[in-house]
């Protein structure tokens, strides 16, 4: 795995609220895992929509793109793709490192 793939430079004004953002993502990731197991496409779509809207604003556009893909795959009820994207989001968050600049 290329560690640099998940390294981001984030604007320093976001530093005080970044830990809360990551905590929210952790909570959503758990909900996402349950939704994948239950094939709950409505919840997956909502979680994808939320991630698409917030991650880019926090300086993580690639994570936002994954949210967008999750939303559209859930809309198509494509279980395999939803599961795959969920794992990609998990990998992204587990390996994310940031520098505040």
């Amino acid at each position, binding site marked *: 795995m290329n560690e640099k793939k998940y390294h981001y430079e984030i604007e320093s*004004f976001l530093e005080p609220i970044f830990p809360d953002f990551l905590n929210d993502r952790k909570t959503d990731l758990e909900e996402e895992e349950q939704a994948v197991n239950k094939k709950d496409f409505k919840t997956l779509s909502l979680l994808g929509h*939320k991630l*698409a*809207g*917030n991650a880019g*604003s926090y300086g993580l556009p690639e994570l936002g793109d994954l949210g967008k893909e999750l939303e559209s795959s859930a809309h198509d009820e494509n279980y395999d793709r939803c599961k795959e994207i969920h794992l990609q989001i998990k990998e992204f968050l587990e390996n994310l490192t940031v520098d505040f600049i």
Partner: protein
Amino acid sequence: MRRVLIIEDDKSFSRLIKHNLENDINTDVDVADNYLKGLSMAINTDYDLYLVDLNLDGESGIDLIKILAKNKKIDNKVIVVSAVITKELQIEGYNLGVSNFVSKPVDLDLLKAIMRKNLRMLDNSHSEILSFYNLYLNLGERRAYAKVDEQKEELNLSPTEYTILFKLLNARGNVVSKEELSYTGKDENKAMSFKSVEMHISALRKKLEINKIVHIESKWGVGYYLKYNQNKQVA
């Protein structure tokens, strides 16, 4: 300090906006994280700006704005943020009084610039007064007053009466056609009947009786104008 209400179900997003606004634009920011809480806070408290998400846990932000618009004046006070902004939504929103649509993910610099512009407009409109002899309109608050015996009396006009008086005051004694006055109803894109215009004019005349100095004259077959009664002194 200006007050802003963010109606947004995504806590990460609302935290980001609140953090930015409070630090950079010197505003006091409240957050409602669902549709019902947002509606209740928006109706019961006077905010200077509302930031509304279109998708509130499956409830529609546009529906919330519709209810809000029926209860208070929201022109240039609502900014909509959404990941999906269609042309139809924008037309509906702008007709309701939405000031701007901002796409998610948001560019924070752009959002802050839009908010500053809206707050500046609010500052200007709050202080703008239109007058004709002893009649005064506070354009920001959409309130009409008559100065009688050195006392400022509020005229308590309906929204349509206010808009009609605004057009008449703006014309400063010149005739305003019935046709132009017919576009002063709830839906400004749709004309009301001339009969309705006449009814509103009649109600407005009664409310203006308090001032005795300016009254509404009819120009037969054309429209109406404000006339200054020279026999009375301006208070």
